[in-house]
Every structure is written in C-alpha cells, then in structure tokens.
C-alpha cells in the first residue's frame, strides 16, 4: 500500500475514533465530566469583545451544546481553532482585530512556533501580517518593482507575490526564437540574476516583515537559485537563512493541469527534491513548495477533484522528501497549499475538510509533529468564474468567493480584479479587489470580532461530510492505479479534469449552469468594456533582449565553465542545487535549462 492508502485508512480510523469518543463520553461518566469541565472552562476563558455598536461578543464562538457526547464530537471531530484536526482553522485567532476590551479570562500562553507565523494574523509575538497578498507581475523587472511598491505603500508588512511571463515560466530566454511578443506579457520577464536584483529593489529581503512569493514551477530550482544569488548580491551571504517566502515548484499539478513543465516528470521531481533538501536545511523560514489546486480548479476540475488531487500530490511530495532522508518535522512545516475558491457549494467547506484530512494524514501516516500537521493555505478567488460580458458583475462574484474563502479560515488570500478576463489587471481594478478584502475584514463585522462566526451551520456540516467522502473516494481510485506518480503517468488526473471542464462548458451552453450576463439576463448588445490595457511596449521588449545579450557576452567564458560543472553534477546524480547557485551568477535561465535538458531530456506533453 502506498502512503496515500495509509492516509485513507488513517482518516477512516480517526473517524471511528471520534465515534468511539462520543460513545465513551456518554457511557464513561468520569470521561464525560472531564470533557464537560474542559468545555465550560474554554467558554469561560474566552475573552469578550465589543462591537462599535456596543454589542458584547465572545472572541471565539462555540456551539450551544452541553451533552458530553456532542462535546466529544466537536472537540475530537473538528477541534477548536488551532487544535487538531484543525477543521475550524490552523490557528486560534485569525482576522480578529486587536483586543478592544477584555472582560473575562484570557487564553493560556501558546507555545511559540516559528514557521507557524508565516501567514497568520493575530499571532501574539510579532505585529500581525495582513492576509492580503496580491499577485502581480508585468513587463520588465523595474516595472513590476514599481507595482510592488505601489501595492505595499500602506502596508506594515510587505508580502509580494510574483507572476512571471511565459518565456520565464517555460525556462527559456527572452531572445529565444518566436517569443518576442510574449516578453513581459502576463507577468514579469526574468532572464538573469540582474533582473532578479531589479525586481525586488528597495525591499529589505532579510527583514522579518518581508516575504516574497514566486509563482513558478517548471524552472523553480533555477529561479530559486537566482533569488538567493540576488539577495546575496544586495545583502551579503548572511541574508540566506533569513529569507522568507514561497516558491510554487509544484510539478505534479503542472503535469495534471497547467502544462508548464520543462523536464520529464522524474527529473523535475529530482531537481525539486534537490532544492527542498537545500532550503529546508539552509533557509528554515522559506516555503520551497506551494502545493496548488488553483490551477487544477482553473483547468476545469470539480472542487472535489481539486482538493483530492492537491492533497494527494502533497502526500506524494511528503513521501518523496522523506525517502530522500529529509526528516518529516523539517520539511512538514515548510509545505504550504494554494486553493481556488469559486461559487460552487463545495467551496463552503472545501478548505476546512482539506485541512482536516491533511492533519490526520501527516500525523498518523507520516508521524509528523504538530507543526507538520498544519495545512497552511493561500486562497485565490476563481479567475475562471470571471467573464468579459458585463464584467462589473465580477466584483460581486469575487466578493462572494472572498466570503467563502474567509469562512474557510484561509491564511492568506488573493482577490481577483474584475478586469482579469481581458488583461493583466490595471491599477484601478486591483485597488477595488484589494479593497474588497479590506471591506470584508476591516469594515464589516463578519470576521473581525469573533472566530468561528460563520462556522458549523447544519448546511456547512452537510457539505463537509459529503466532500470528505468524495475526496477519500478519489484517493482510493488513485491508490488503485498505483499511487500519484503512476496515476499521473497514466494521465488519470488530466483526463478527469478535462472531462469535468467539458461538462462545465456544456452546462454553460445548455443553460443548466447559469452565468449572469452570459447565458442568463443577457444584455442584448455586446459592447466592449472601456479598459486601458496593460501591454508591454515593443521598446521595452527590445530592452530586455538587449540587456540579456550584454549579460551573455560579458559572462560567456565563465558561463561555459559553470554550466559544464552543472551538467557534470546532474549527470552524476548528485544534488544539483549548489551547482545551480554558482551557475545563475554567470548564466541565463535559458542557458541553464538547455544544458540540463541535454542530460535529462525535455518534457513530453500529455494530450
């Protein structure tokens, strides 16, 4: 049985354990009393806050139950926020505004956990980080840099999220044949370490208030090496252990959905593990992989498929890193997740259930300690749910999705701009998207007073049960196919996603899936929205090509030596990350990719 099969067993066993605890609480009087007392104590210790209108509210809402069996079902089956199995949240308090007035009690001091703070708000030790993290990247490095400064001008903490252009995502250079028009489109163009220096110019990369997220997978180890090299150029070698951030590096989902893979699967996984081995040892504050369902969802999967494939990919990575000899308590806390949030009913509880399955699987199948059990989640509202027709409706769609995302206690969130169906978002619509989050979290009273404000409704519980059963069924199917890698090579996930996408389109065309403004309540005339498009001017594209030529010319000889050495290391099967760190100093992304492909081959697309 693969690890995934063990995870299925662990969840089943845990569910049975919960039922046993319920029975025991009802039959074993002493146990029942203990639970009852603990419950009352938790309630009594919960601080009370006052809303601006003077209404007193507890900072943690708990169900109105006083029967030991039901208390057991809640405490073991869901867990208080921040407690195993983390259904209600990875942390005790999230999104809450600082305590206004404490009338009763206070929480016992929680033991400090370093990695746990990355994406939380409401953690006591450090000023809380805003959960807002907006994805951004356009034109050349200096243009994106300017956008980064604009986005973070009012923020205490600087949490950047970087989108790369097509050539960068495919590991090729801006001077490659036929890519000129793609330079700086849909993301920032990065060819060399010099571009990387420009990209984060003016930000203090070693600061505890700074973190960078980089959305790139195929060439992730090379880009990671460039980031480290750029940080060293600006702050010296001592900055390396202080670097905070995330790189996506999710190969499985690329093969399953997003198609940005550049090496064959096994080679890609090997280079990824090389990087993870390095960063977990040398950069304890870095998240070297963001296990992503977003692109699976955007490619057309159902929400259950999204969660099931993402979780199973995560467990497969964990198995791989453990096989390489990285201790589970070293890599476990450095794994993070990224999910899509759309408007289907599953999203009412999709992330909640995912958090629970991950915690049980990591604890019981992998033996992970508390920090390695946390499903730390970044959510993005669904880009696919946004449409061009009557595009201002997209504001409403995104607002509803944001509400769902926060109901699921996501650790950070990106809200899409309404103009996204046509273009790289423009500043006006980005501002509205960011304000959407602020309105929900800061202006409205939905999330800022009380943890669990919208958790645990009968409907939400029904969704939780149905979603968990469906996810475990998907796991069993993958297990039957021989595990994640075998299923991927069999195109299982790909074909499932494609089928779901096809069905979704059919439903739009036949009207069973209403899309307002598109197939329902359609405004007769089709007028193009007046949008100022963010397109990269040819002059800038040429500038990037020229800079790259200069870099290549300047480093020609050194590059050859560094690349020969890299090829040698790859050929011998050693960890290639140290050689990559040297190679990026003098060679470009495309040069490195090309030489590595000589040894391991190119990715053969699956159709």
């Amino acid at each position: 049985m693969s690890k995934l099969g063990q995870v299925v067993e662990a969840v089943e066993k845990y569910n049975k354990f919960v039922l046993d605890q319920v029975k025991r609480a009802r039959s074993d009087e002493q146990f029942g009393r203990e639970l009852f007392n603990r419950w009352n104590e938790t309630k009594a210790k919960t601080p009370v806050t006052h809303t601006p209108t003077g209404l007193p509210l507890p900072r943690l809402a708990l169900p109105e139950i006083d029967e030991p069996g039901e208390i057991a079902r809640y405490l073991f089956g869901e867990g208080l926020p921040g407690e195993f199995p983390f259904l209600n949240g990875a942390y005790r308090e999230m999104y809450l505004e600082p305590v206004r007035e404490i009338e009763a009690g206070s929480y016992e001091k929680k033991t400090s956990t370093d990695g746990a703070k990355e994406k939380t708000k409401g953690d006591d030790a450090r000023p809380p980080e805003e959960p807002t993290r907006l994805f951004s990247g356009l034109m050349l490095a200096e243009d994106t840099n300017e956008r980064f400064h604009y986005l973070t001008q009012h923020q205490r903490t600087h949490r950047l999220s970087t989108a790369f252009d097509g050539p960068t995502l495919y590991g090729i250079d801006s001077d490659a044949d036929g890519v000129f028009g793609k330079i700086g489109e849909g993301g920032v163009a990065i060819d060399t370490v010099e571009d990387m220096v420009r990209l984060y110019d003016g930000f203090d990369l070693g600061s505890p208030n700074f973190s960078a997220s980089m959305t790139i997978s195929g060439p992730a180890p090379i880009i990671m090496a460039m980031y480290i090299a750029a940080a060293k150029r600006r702050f010296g070698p001592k900055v390396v252990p202080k670097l905070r951030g995330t790189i996506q590096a999710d190969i499985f989902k690329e093969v399953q959905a997003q198609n940005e893979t550049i090496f064959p699967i096994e080679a890609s996984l090997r280079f990824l593990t090389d990087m993870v081995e390095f960063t977990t040892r040398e950069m304890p504050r870095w998240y070297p992989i963001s296990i992503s369902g977003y692109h699976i969802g955007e490619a057309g999967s159902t929400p259950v498929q999204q969660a099931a494939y993402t979780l199973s990919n995560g467990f497969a990575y964990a198995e791989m890193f453990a096989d390489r000899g990285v201790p589970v308590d070293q890599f476990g806390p450095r794994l993070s997740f990224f999910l899509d949030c759309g408007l289907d009913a599953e999203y009412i509880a999709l992330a909640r259930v995912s958090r629970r399955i991950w915690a049980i699987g990591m604890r019981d199948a992998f033996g992970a300690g508390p920090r390695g059990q946390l499903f730390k989640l970044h959510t993005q509202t669904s880009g696919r749910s946004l449409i061009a027709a009557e595009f201002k409706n997209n504001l409403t769609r995104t607002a509803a999705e944001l509400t769902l995302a926060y109901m699921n206690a996501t650790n950070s969130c990106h809200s899409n701009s309404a103009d996204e169906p046509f273009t790289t978002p423009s500043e006006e619509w980005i501002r509205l998207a960011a304000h959407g989050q602020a309105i929900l979290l800061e202006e409205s009273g939905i999330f800022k007073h009380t943890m669990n404000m919208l958790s645990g409704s009968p409907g939400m519980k029904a969704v939780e049960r149905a979603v968990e059963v469906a996810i475990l069924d998907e796991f069993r199917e993958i297990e039957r196919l021989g595990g994640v890698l075998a299923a991927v090579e069999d195109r299982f996930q790909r074909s499932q996603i494609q089928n779901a996408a096809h069905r979704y389109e059919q439903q739009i065309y036949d009207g069973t899936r209403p899309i307002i403004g598109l197939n329902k309540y359609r405004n007769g005339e089709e007028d193009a929205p007046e949008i100022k498009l963010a397109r990269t001017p040819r002059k800038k594209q040429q500038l990037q090509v020229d800079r790259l030529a200069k870099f290549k010319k300047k480093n020609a000889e050194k590059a050859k030596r560094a690349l020969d050495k890299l090829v040698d290391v790859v050929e011998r099967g050693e960890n290639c990350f140290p050689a990559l760190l040297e190679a990026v100093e003098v060679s470009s992304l495309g040069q490195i990719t090309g030489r590595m492909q000589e040894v391991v081959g190119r990715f053969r697309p699956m159709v």
Partner: protein
Amino acid sequence: MAAPIRILTAVPICDGHDSAINTINLEFIRHGIEVIYLGYHRSVGDIVRAAIQEDVRAIGISSYNGGHVEFFGDVVDLLRKRGASDIKVFGGGGGTITHDDAEAMKHGGVDEIFFAGTSLTEMTDYVRERYGKPRKRAGAKSPDIELAWRLTEIEDGTRRSGREKKHQTSNIKHQTSRVIGFTGPGGAGKTTLIDELVLRFLNQNPKGRIAILSHDPSVIGEGALLGDRATMINSQNDRVFMRSMATRGQAGGLSPATDDCLALLAQSNFDYVIIETVGTGQEAIPFQKKGLVDLTVLVMNPDYGSRLQLQKIVMLDLADIVVVNKSDLQRARTAHTEIEQRLEQNRRNQRLIDTVAKRHRDPGVDQLFALICRNDQETRKKR
C-alpha cells in the same frame, strides 16, 4: 461524400492553456472535422511546418497568454513566406483578445477571431462553411508543399484515374527509402518510441531526412483527433516530414489511402519512411507480405493479459522485431520470457528488445536503433 475537412489546432509558445482547445477539438470531431492537434507551447515555425505537411485547410490557434497580435501575425506571415497562403488562420482567446486586437489581427490576414461566449456550434458552423469548399491550387512553391498536395489528392481520391496508376502498390521499383512499419496495441508507446528513434536518427545523420505516416482511427463520415504530433516533440523538425491520417472507416489499423501514400513517400528521397498503425487488435495484419514495408516492428505493452492472449496475437508470427516497451513495469520480465518462448517456436530469427521509451537516452531504444541501422546495411548489401 465529400472528404472531411482537415484543420490544425495549437496553443502558442509559452502558453499552456489547453482547456478551451481540448473542448473545441472534441466539438469539431463530433461534427466530422479531422483535427490535427499540435498541442500547447508550440512555436510559429512548428505550427506552419505542420500545417504545410498536413496540408490542412486552416489553422485554429487558442491563445490565452498574451502576445497574440504578434503571434497570429507571425503565423500568417510565415505561411505567406513559405508559399502556403491558401492555409487560413482563425482563433480565439476568451476575453484576452480585445475587439481592437481582433480588428488588427484580421487586418493582418487572420480570418476570424472568436470571443468569449461564442457557442461551440457557431465555431463548427464557421469552419464547415468557410473551409468546406474545394480549393483550386496550382504551382506548389516547395517540394514539401508539392508532396503534401499529392498526399491530399491521394487521400481524398480526387486524382484523375490515369495518373493515379503511378502510385500502385505493386510498383516498388522507384522506392528510394527504407520503410519501417510500427504496429501494436493502443497504449504500448509506439508514438513515443518512434519519436525517440527519430531523435537518434537526426543526431546521427546531420543531413538525413525522414518521413512519418501516422494513423489514428475514424469512422466514415465522422471526424478524428490526430494527436500524435503533440507528443512527438523531436519529430517537429525541418528534416522530418510527418503526415497524420485518419483510417476513415477501414479496419486493420490503416487508411484506404495508406498504400498509395506510402508508395509516394517511399520514392520521395527520404532515408527512412516510418509508418505507424493505430492501436491494433490481436488479429490485425496491417502490413501485407511483399508490400512496401521492409521491416516490421511490433510494440507490445507488458500488460497483455494471460499467456493464452499472447498466443492469439498474429503479428507475433510476422514481425521482424518485437519490442516490450514500458519494461520498467512490474510485469515486464514475465512478458519478456513468455514472448521469447513464443518467438523461439517460430524459428524465424525474430529479435526481442526491451525498452523504456519515456526515459531519455534509454539503452533499450539505443539497441533498437542500432538494430534497425544494421538491418538496413545488410539489406542494402543484399540488394
């Protein structure tokens, strides 16, 4: 009945958004169109080369990653430069292509851009209406175009009967190429294996040229998805002439036009012509004795079932080389032993090779390539 419309679809370079095109491909096929799908992340050069070799009526491009004005324009320009302006270009990109962009693209020679919300029916109707009428063409601008046109004429049966005789299968006097036939059950990895052999051929023969005739199944009157190009990354090369054919209702793994197309290719100065059948059943004998095929390779998947199933596979008696691909699978050793026994009974000096075609630089594929080259030299001596 008119011959099916053939079109090529692709997603531009640095773009992996294939969700829309997958849906559209299926819809085209349902409406009787033969779709040669080139896949995602494909360059202008790859697209134009494939369109010319396949002699399609039009190219449909689905672009979601920006740079579309340049990309579509470059495709139109390169078609013109290569003398293939009769191949038209259309496409879409959801909301990423604005109405202004579309105007500019049409001004540059693109036929049509479909916007978000266009129904699938609208698109198929457009393609059938616009690209369904016969083309009148004269004076092919390059040898590849000339060859591609003649293949189309053979396939669509429009060549006048008098001249058609030239390509009768019996006439093998003018054969200049070695013809290698690949067959085997679906999912055995024939396509990947051929692509890996092509890579070795191109590396070893800096001036060599190769032709590939690849088949996918279709029913009379319906379309087909011809998708081999998407996985054959090494075969998208100026020294490789590839043609994808639908079987158009013929059983046995090949098309009614295969023999004549093969005869034409075999006398067109390629070093090798490779012919790949569709995934075949146990009883299939796709390559006739004394036909054009010099060497037959049967590619097997280790998971063929019981030994009894193995006895039923007719090609095991006829193939010159049997390959057990995916030999990294658990069942591969058993498969090797059982097939070896079966071949020994035949006493025909058939060769058995294990490969893992998906693995880069696989020693088994190297061995197969060497065997094919050696066999080639021996036969040439005998002639």
